[in-house]
């Protein structure tokens, strides 16, 4: 039997990797990919707790998170395409028109 804290620890590590990727990478596409990692960490937490509580609520919440992640990916990548068309760059630190 695997204790629930193992799953939670793995999810915490995965979330931290996502945070690192989002903050450190320049490429906007990889930043969005890091958000997917963080969402997956949250999903893992929900499914693990759902299993150990013998309840299905966590799994249903995970469905909604997957649907919202799909919507986020569609919108986010649409923004990347529009950005690339206007600025011809995908690097987050080159998009600085609003900087004073």
């Amino acid at each position, binding site marked *: 039997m695997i204790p629930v804290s193992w799953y939670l620890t*793995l999810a*915490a590590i995965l979330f931290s990797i996502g945070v690192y990727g989002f903050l450190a990478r320049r490429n906007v596409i990889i930043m969005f990919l890091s958000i997917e990692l963080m969402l997956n960490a949250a999903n893992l937490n929900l499914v693990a707790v759902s299993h150990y509580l013998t309840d*299905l609520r966590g799994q*249903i919440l995970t469905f909604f998170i997957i649907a919202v992640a799909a919507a986020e990916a569609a919108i986010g990548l649409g923004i990347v395409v*529009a950005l690339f068309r206007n600025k011809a760059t995908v690097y987050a630190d080159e998009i600085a028109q609003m900087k004073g």
Partner: protein
Amino acid sequence: MISLSQLLFAYLATAITGLALLAVNARNPVHSVLLVLAMFFHMAGLYLTLNAEFLAAVQIIVYAGAILVLYLFVVFLVNLKEEIRVKRFVVSQHYAILLAIGLCVLLVSNMDSFALGISGPWTIEAIQQTTHIKALGRELFTTYLLPFEITGLILLVAVIGGLVLAREDKATTKGNSDDENAETKGVHQ
């Protein structure tokens, strides 16, 4: 004594951590996306160890099948030859490492204070009696019907929003004889 399920968990956890680390550090964005794809498959395996077989299927179909293919299409925007040469990280990369490690230590060190709440009605025997998908469907279409409908609405908005954002602005490209184009031309004249 290490049991077989613990060994499987150890393999899946190592693979997920390693693949995620490689993905955020990879120089080539295509490699990043493919590494995340492999990570999602291992994640589906982890869901199987948690008796969430329908979610494991959804993880592979929706995440690996739909979302990552979308990412792969957008990666083709990047000039790969140039991408491999330019620097990958922002200047404040060290702060990002510090923050991520700090967050990880904070979360893991507070794990002891986590306590499970009251158990629900869906034990493994109860799920086996009604079958997993039937049990999930019953919960989804009774207790969580309103959130389900709202999710449908969110997806509709996302589809329309993605189309509007990614559509080429017809007014700026010449040589098109669209109604819309004619309209904007009329305004300019």
